[in-house]
């Protein structure tokens, strides 16, 4: 009796976590689906230290170019001045460490930093909070902005020469510093701290100390509302924009002129910013997109959209007609579970990798069925763990790269290890075998 009571008690304690883990159609422990799933191992010593005592801030965009070079964009103002970037405080050194690396960083396959650029310059407006980064077939780099007043997207050559910016200036004059109550993705990323070191806070000039957020304008043909990601369709000469942190749509622009050609909201309908119904786990599916954090185009022409705060992927044809949707970890509140998507590199792109910055996991889904096969990662600062995994990308060898925003501030590499049997719904940290993989 006593024993049974203990067992029931233990189950009750585990239940709330277990209920969440069982979301998304993940198999029960031991129930390996036929065909297995891609396996990965984190490389704890990739990339190499950048030198110059440079450090990464909240990292908000990652993409791989045709040479398998890894580009990231990060927030160079996401630091606590006194404790994190003492080398640059007020122009007078507080200490020898550290300084922010430039906004855009390019790493080669060995993990060496080979180029760096970005930030404000003549002839364009660098975003308030750069986010999303994509590389087109010409090797040009597209960068969005998820800040409260970001309305543009920018295009640079791969070595950082400005080419164009699209989207008009903020519609309303930007008021002096006010309350940043906006639901933008990086509002409060590394917010300023009260007492140094307490509260888990970094220092992006203080939560809410930025300009107040502009209203959404999801039906604008002139500007964007916090572009957070891109997909390139070179054949059609089009770029698809995840729009975004304030807007609730996918916008398709002409690759050369940046003109908005068409756009759509959830289920392919015209977006309605006045419909502010929030996602509630177990409740009715929202008719609008929440925060649109990514858009990706598969080789077969399907368009995958991250509806982050609604915990779902919506899939469209390129013309915007709705195909289907799937939820991922639908109990997730707050920032939501679907932050970014990458495809596996087999010809059929059989697998989807979903970065989930709220649950600090990467979900592996079968692309056809959209069933979750397994997941890996967990919260933490060690290799293979995440704090707010914001983006995911794959290289030609199938290796996977993740970036972390907020105080995660990392770029991590997971080496592809082939397809293997799935034994766990949630694999935790994918460390090299025997804990010795890093040692020889």
């Amino acid at each position, binding site marked *: 009796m006593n024993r049974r009571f203990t067992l029931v008690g233990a189950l009750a304690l585990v239940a709330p976590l277990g209920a*969440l*883990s069982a979301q998304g159609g993940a198999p029960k422990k031991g129930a390996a689906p036929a065909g297995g799933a891609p396996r990965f191992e984190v490389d*704890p010593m990739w990339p190499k230290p950048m030198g110059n005592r440079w450090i990464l801030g909240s990292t908000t965009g990652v993409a791989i170019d045709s040479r398998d070079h890894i580009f990231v964009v990060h927030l160079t103002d996401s630091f606590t001045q006194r404790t994190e970037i003492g080398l640059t405080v007020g122009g007078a050194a507080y200490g020898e460490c550290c300084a922010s690396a430039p906004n855009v960083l390019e790493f080669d396959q060995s993990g060496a930093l080979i180029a760096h650029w970005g930030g404000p310059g003549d002839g364009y407006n660098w975003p308030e909070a750069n986010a999303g980064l994509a590389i087109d077939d010409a090797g040009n780099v597209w960068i969005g902005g998820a800040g409260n007043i970001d309305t543009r997207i920018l295009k640079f050559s791969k070595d950082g020469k400005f080419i164009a910016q699209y989207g008009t200036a903020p519609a309303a004059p930007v008021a002096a510093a006010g309350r940043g109550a906006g639901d933008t993705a990086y509002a409060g990323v590394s917010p300023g701290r009260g007492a140094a070191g307490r*509260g888990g806070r970094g220092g992006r000039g203080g939560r809410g100390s930025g300009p107040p957020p502009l209203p959404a304008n999801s039906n604008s043909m002139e500007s964007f509302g916090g572009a957070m990601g891109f997909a390139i369709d070179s054949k059609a000469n089009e770029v698809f924009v995840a729009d975004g942190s304030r807007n609730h749509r996918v916008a398709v622009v002409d690759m050369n002129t940046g003109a908005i050609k068409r756009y759509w909201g959830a289920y392919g309908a015209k977006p309605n910013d006045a419909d502010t119904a929030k996602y509630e786990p177990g409740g009715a599916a929202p008719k609008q997109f929440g925060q649109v954090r990514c858009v990706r185009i598969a080789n077969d022409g399907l368009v995958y959209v991250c509806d982050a705060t609604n915990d779902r992927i919506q899939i469209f044809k390129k013309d915007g007609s709705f195909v289907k949707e799937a939820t991922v970890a639908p109990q997730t509140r707050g920032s939501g579970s679907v932050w970014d998507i990458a495809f596996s590199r087999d010809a059929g792109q059989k697998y989807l990798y979903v970065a989930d910055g709220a649950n600090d996991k990467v979900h592996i889904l079968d692309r056809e069925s959209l069933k979750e096969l397994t997941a890996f990662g967990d919260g933490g600062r060690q290799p293979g763990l995440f704090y707010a995994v914001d983006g995911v990308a794959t290289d030609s060898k199938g290796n996977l790269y993740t970036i972390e925003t907020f105080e995660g501030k990392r770029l991590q590499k997971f080496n592809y290890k082939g397809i293997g049997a799935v034994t766990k719904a949630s694999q935790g940290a994918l460390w090299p075998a025997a804990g010795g993989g890093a040692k*020889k």
Partner: protein
Amino acid sequence: MTGRRKLILAVALAGAVVSLGVGQHALDAMARVHAVQAPRFEVDPLWPKPLPNHWVLGNVIGVGVDANDHVFIVHRNDTFDARNEIGAAQNPPLSECCVPAPPVLEFDPAGNLVKAWGGPPADGKYVWPSSNHGIAVDNKNNIWIGGNGGGAGGAGGDSHILKFTHDGTFLMQIGQPGQPTNSNSTTHFGRVAKISFDYKANEAFVADGYGNRRVAVLDMNDGKIKRFWGAYGKPPSDSQLPPYEPGQPQPSFRNPVHCAEPSVDGLLYVCDRVNDRIQVFKENGEFVKEKIIKPATKGDGSVWDIAFSKDPQQKYIFLADGKNEKVYVMDRQSLEIITEFGDGGRQPGQWFAVHSIATDSKGNIYTTETYEGKRIQKFVYKGMASVNPDQGVVWPKR
């Protein structure tokens, strides 16, 4: 002339290249000329093992090692961003991840979590510090914990020390809690940073602290304050100090007095953090000497914590500098820096605010990071070796 100009230009360019890190190989080659003999370490990127239960660490502000090389840490488990970091601890839960781990965690040498405990007691028998700080294991396997929480106007802060058994059973509360700063008090402390022991004398040395500006010496059994002193062995004062300026005389300790480490030969090494210096005393409080470390360092200062090497003579000091993100390997007798390693960053072997340091019986080093570093890392002792004066990040060879 033109040739000379070209040369100057070439040298300037080479300098620029080196400063960009592109010339790292050239730099390594140059440095090898001046290689030094020192204990060498490699970070173990896969230690400790991931925590269970979606637990995460907050500011890790203390580390101690017991007789069996079990590693104890104490962290502030209220230093999280509610929405982005500990969503699973909200009501209703926002996400599966994460949950604050209990304040005290014990790891075995393999990095397995053995036990987790700490926090305010249900029965109110003692006062858990509002901001626990520093953890030490004595030779009876008991655990001592300080606290640096400050109350309003300096009153009502953490002014006591707690002593527990190895598995977290409460033993003793030393000093009245909730008292204001008073560096001359014999009844309470002023926001204690760290505690260390001299078993022969049965005394505990208290780095006291974030409020007080002194070293206090206790009887290990009854916790009575036996003696105390300030900088240069003088009576401590709590009078207001101007901000730290490099090169100025500093007659007083500043807050925090961050470590007080007795060595085998009867000396006491004190971390005067913000003054960028180590002061060395006899255990009776008599001033012996001091060493200034990176005196240009402002803000948090350069001298955060000290551990000694495990050879019988304690030949080396390992000094954690959480501002410049380095560990210095120093000769304990001369107090000269022999070599340094580490750098700023979130990867293995890098740090954000390396706060505490300890060694185990095999000579391995453990470091913890506060602020948003929030880690414990292990650096494996690899014996004496020829190393560069600045080793950078000490990764294992592939």
